[in-house]
């Protein structure tokens, strides 16, 4: 029988993994919708509005899933990790409170106007509502990433009787890993959305969509991906350098490096064996890791053997999970780079009149690649922080609730069943909507509301 600790960890991991799928899409999709809307306002080209109408449905569905899974999250701390708030609540509390106050209400209220208000408010109010929803989701990401980054690289606090007290709010919010993590996450969201847009549009085209709207959104997705992916790779590199400085044990696990030293290879494949404390079946690029992390071949890379307590208990994260999730993320990133650049090049040269069906199929297959990379990235980050919950302050096992294991297990099974069911329903409904759109069953073009006179505001 598994104990409460491990079950609670699985449950938390399952809940937040499910939650993050949806914000990852809504954060950037809000901005893309705003872009579609502004293009339409400026050009009057109906195809932009068609793109807006299609993806606003995707947005609404995604948002609903994000909200309900988010509500589950806000109860998790209390039901499963009471020790977390008891020990660092003075820091985490205000950050969570600001997220609710400045982000959640904003997006929830203006979402109503964005979705149902087009014929009730002047066009500019509708555009403004779209902006505020996008802004709200981004604020939401900012606050929660601030908290999460603080858990990785705590700053601006002091410990009094085992309880963290804030001393400097600026240092807390803008803690050392926040800029890197925030940028990397926002870019991840942009990439995820780029591939969702390109994938669904490619699906429409394959399904015989006669309108040119699908082509336009396909192109938007491809170019967005092509622009963002090099930025993401660069941001990831900087993120890694920052982690090297603050959480060297995590880097050692990501690189699968046991002994500190220079000339460390970049491992492409290996099976880390934590019993024997060595790797099996290593394939690597000589000096690669030293070059990436220290920018010269002799550069010293931390090794896992430095993080073992006197009595032999490892004080570093589990190696396999971190090592492999990191490779899945980077691998997905490289696949994104290859596909988006080749396709962008083809479109640039030959346009989209006769798209190669295999190119379109590749995009359909990659529709949810952003999810894979994002989850893999989060697993790297979060498992890489273990055994700490808050680095150097609170260990995971110290925070767990004293509830019986069978109770956690039963709720875990229920959540898992629901999550699998809803994820399948979500994915299939997106493709169903794309099929419907391809058959031309889009809702009629809409007219702005009674305040139509105000649409005269010159192109926003």
């Amino acid at each position, binding site marked *: 029988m598994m104990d409460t600790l491990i079950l609670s960890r699985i449950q938390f991991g399952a809940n937040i993994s499910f939650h993050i799928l949806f914000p990852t899409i809504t954060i950037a999709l809000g901005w893309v919708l705003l872009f579609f809307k502004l293009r339409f306002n400026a050009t009057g080209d109906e195809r932009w509005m068609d793109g807006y109408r299609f993806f606003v449905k995707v947005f609404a569905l995604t948002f609903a899933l994000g*909200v309900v899974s988010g509500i589950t999250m806000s109860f998790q701390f209390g039901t499963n990790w009471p020790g977390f708030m008891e020990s660092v609540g003075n820091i985490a509390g205000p950050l969570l409170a600001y997220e609710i106050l400045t982000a959640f209400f904003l997006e929830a209220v203006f979402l109503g106007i964005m979705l149902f208000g087009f014929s009730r408010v002047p066009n500019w109010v509708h555009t403004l509502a779209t902006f505020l929803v996008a802004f709200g989701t981004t604020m939401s990401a900012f606050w929660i990433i601030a908290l999460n980054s603080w858990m990785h690289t705590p700053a601006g606090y002091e410990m009094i009787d085992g309880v963290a*007290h804030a001393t400097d709010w600026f240092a807390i919010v803008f803690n050392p890993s926040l800029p890197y993590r925030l940028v990397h996450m926002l870019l991840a969201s942009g990439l995820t959305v780029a591939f969702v847009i390109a994938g669904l549009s490619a699906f429409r085209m394959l399904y015989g969509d006669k309108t040119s709207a699908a082509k336009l959104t396909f192109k938007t997705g491809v170019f967005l991906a092509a622009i963002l992916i090099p930025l993401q790779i660069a941001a990831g590199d900087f993120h890694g350098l920052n982690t090297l400085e603050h959480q060297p044990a995590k880097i050692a696990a990501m690189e699968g490096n046991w002994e500190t030293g220079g000339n460390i290879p970049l491992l492409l494949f290996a099976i880390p064996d934590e019993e024997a404390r060595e790797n099996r079946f290593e394939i690597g690029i000589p000096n690669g890791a030293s070059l990436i992390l220290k920018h010269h071949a002799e550069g010293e890379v931390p090794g896992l053997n430095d993080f073992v307590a006197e009595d032999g208990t490892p004080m570093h994260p589990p190696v396999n999970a971190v090592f492999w999730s990191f490779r899945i993320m980077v691998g997905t990133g490289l696949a994104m780079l290859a596909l988006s650049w080749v396709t962008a090049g083809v479109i640039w040269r030959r346009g989209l009149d006769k798209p190669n069906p295999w190119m379109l199929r590749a995009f359909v297959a990659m529709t949810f690649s952003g999810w894979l990379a994002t989850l893999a990235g989060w697993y790297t980050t979060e498992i890489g922080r273990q055994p700490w919950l808050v680095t150097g302050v609170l260990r995971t096992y110290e925070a767990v609730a004293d509830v019986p294991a069978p109770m956690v297990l039963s709720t875990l099974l229920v959540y898992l069943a629901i999550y699998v069911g*809803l994820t399948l329903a979500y994915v299939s409904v997106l493709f169903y909507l794309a099929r419907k759109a391809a058959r031309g069953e889009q809702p009629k073009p809409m007219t702005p509301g009674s305040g139509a006179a105000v649409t005269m505001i010159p192109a926003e």
Partner: protein
Amino acid sequence: MSELFNDPATWLPVVFAGLMGVSILVYVVLDGFDLGIGMLTPLVSVEDRDRMIASIGPFWDANETWLVLAIGLLLVAFPAAHGTILTALYIPVAIMLVGLILRGVAFEFRVKAPAHNKHLWDWAFFIGSLVTALSQGFMLGLYIMGLEWTAMTVAFALLTALCTAAGYTFIGACWLIIKAEDALQTKAVRWALRSLWGLLAGFVMISAATPFVSERIFQKWFSVPEIILLAPLPITAFLVTCILLWALRQLPDPTDRFRHVPFAGGTLLFTLAFLGLAYSFYPYVVPEQLTIYEAASAPESLMIILVGTAVVLPMIAAYTMLAYVVFRGKARDLRYD
């Protein structure tokens, strides 16, 4: 008195208990009406169901956010209590979350999934609303019973669960009286009249039981002069009930002028009941175990939240009202425009 205000550690917990109370109350009224409508959906035809859901479509998300705020305030202001309460309520919380998930996603899936699946999502919507209401009522009952799990307390909690569902149905029906026309409005009046009795039964039950759970609460109500000072509370409740019963018999009126009266009356009833409960439990946040002072976060952290709240809450109130103004009037079909 001045001393009280000089030391933030004495007044901050009270302010936060108040804020939390207000968010719970606002949540109960606002999400109460859309959960109530959810519970009424099986009673009507497909077209009426679309209309009923259209009447809450633009609002439910923001309404639910008040729950997030309430639980967030409990979490951030009273971390010690938060853990105790939520671990004691582990199972009902999980059931409520499942309910909230089902009805929240059903809003979207029922109109986006293939048409032949719509009735399945309609069921998910109904069941989600019902389960949410019941589990919230159950938690209320258990909280009143001091978070103890015995046969007696569970039986009581099951009764409060039913009454809470009736109460939400009532406020939902009142909302529908505002939003619906013709036959649907007439039905809503009938539903409101019936479910009002369930709500009243709940009030009577809770008022009767609470003083006997703890000697302390008994003293707070039934000693002199408290009993006289507090008399306005039950008297107002009685008067409001009479007005409600009268108004519901007049509706639907041909001019539709009184359509707001039941909802306003219902809100007032909820408020009164809430004040009574708050009075009973103050200063405890975990009944008879932990006071708001013992459970509160550090003053410097509460202060920074309070500043934010003071700035942002009025803005939230303003744009929430904006949304209600934009979507005033009778509910039409939901259209993504």
